[in-house]
């Protein structure tokens, strides 16, 4: 069983990075890997409420983030520094997440076996 950390660093809908990262997270979790997620920079925008990707014909994978708890993905860290840069508030984020300092995230990277950045 591997501790796999997936980092979302790019915003949704402009490219497939977010969708690929979520697919990998759910797939790995279903194969009994211990999956944790980190959201930073515009990757945090994946978790913004009130999105409607179908407006631009983009696939609505955002709803699928709701399935994470079913897959036992419990560690979801959101970078506070990036939140500030984007002037986002905690209530803008639709999931149960842990808002974390950069040091806490750096520490997490040390504890896991693999880190994949999308």
């Amino acid at each position, binding site marked *: 069983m591997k501790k796999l950390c997936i980092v979302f660093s790019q915003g949704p809908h402009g490219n497939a990075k977010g969708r690929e990262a979520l697919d990998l997270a759910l797939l790995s979790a279903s194969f009994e890997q211990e999956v944790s997620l980190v959201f930073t*920079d515009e990757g945090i925008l994946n978790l913004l409420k009130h999105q409607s990707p179908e407006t631009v014909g983009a696939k609505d994978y955002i709803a699928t983030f709701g399935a994470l708890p079913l897959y036992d993905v419990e560690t979801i860290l959101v970078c506070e520094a990036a939140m500030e840069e984007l002037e986002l508030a905690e209530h803008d984020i639709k999931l149960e997440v842990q808002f974390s300092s950069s040091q806490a995230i750096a520490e997490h*990277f*040390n504890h896991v076996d693999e*880190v994949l*950045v999308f």
Partner: protein
Amino acid sequence: MILHHIQVSAAQSAALKLCLRYINSTDSILLSSNAVNCLLNKEWQSRLSGYNILVLEDDVIARGLQSRLSAFKMISYADFVALTLTHNKVISW
């Protein structure tokens, strides 16, 4: 100890910026491909000072930057492989 690997130009991607936000003092940074170009820039040079910076020699030679980047530690592909073994993990940003 983590080896942070950056392969894209700092002018086109936030990879290097993100790496610096989460890096520990004992970690190393390997710049390869277009990421080597940032070392030409005074600002990036100062931001990276104090970290163990390694540069993939072939990518520097390919770009004709040997003399401009002579201040930085050059490594070969073989060294790169060895580095991946002496670090706990590699993060490709």
